[in-house]
């Protein structure tokens, strides 16, 4: 596709439910990033993939958060046993290469609301 695609655009879940958020990066992009953006704040880094390898997961707030990119393309961010503090916009970004100044291209995000 022409850009980074994220689905769903909105997700409402009850506290305690599991959710899965999908990211389709730009075709051919090696690097994939997930960010969490709380209301009125800047995005904060969650995790990074280079192809299928998860090289950095230092930003994941707890072991309830899990991300995968099994074939080096589509990525899924899963949150288990959701809590109200998980409510945020989750942004996915991809970039062409590693170790260069290639810009990160962002999707429209998924707004997650936990009731």
């Amino acid at each position, binding site marked *: 596709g022409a850009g980074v695609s994220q689905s769903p655009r909105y997700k409402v879940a009850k506290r305690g439910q599991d959710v899965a958020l999908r990211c389709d990066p730009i075709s051919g992009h090696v*690097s994939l*990033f997930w*960010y969490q953006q709380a209301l*009125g*704040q*800047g*995005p*904060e*880094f969650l995790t*990074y993939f280079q192809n299928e390898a998860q*090289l*950095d997961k230092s*930003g994941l707030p707890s072991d309830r958060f899990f991300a995968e990119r099994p074939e080096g393309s589509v990525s899924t961010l899963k949150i288990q046993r959701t809590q109200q503090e998980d409510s945020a*916009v989750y*942004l996915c*970004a991809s*970039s062409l290469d*590693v*170790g*260069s*100044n290639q*810009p*990160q*291209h*962002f*999707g*429209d*995000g998924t*707004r997650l609301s936990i009731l």
Partner: protein
Amino acid sequence: AQTVTQSQPEMSVQEAETVTLSCTYDTSESDYYLFWYKQPPSRQMILVIRQEAYKQQNATENRFSVNFQKAAKSFSLKISDSQLGDAAMYFCAYRQGYGGATNKLIFGTGTLLAVQP
């Protein structure tokens, strides 16, 4: 750890006028990149301009330019001839240079820019 600070939560500018958004950062690295991103209500983060730390010349993209002061660790964005479509949240962001493990972006808290007709 690197940090990015935007001290102006909100700014307002008249259409066709010029506005400057401030950003400061803290790092012990010598090789890094700085970015300004625009986020309209649609939420998609759009790259406005970027600056390589090793370049002394300030970056310019049409009506957008930066004032990069490396010693002061300051990176302000100037928008000339402001247009209604410039209204958005603007984020300053830092990324470690080549050799950084992740290339992750570190964002400031943003400045909400309003453009008055």
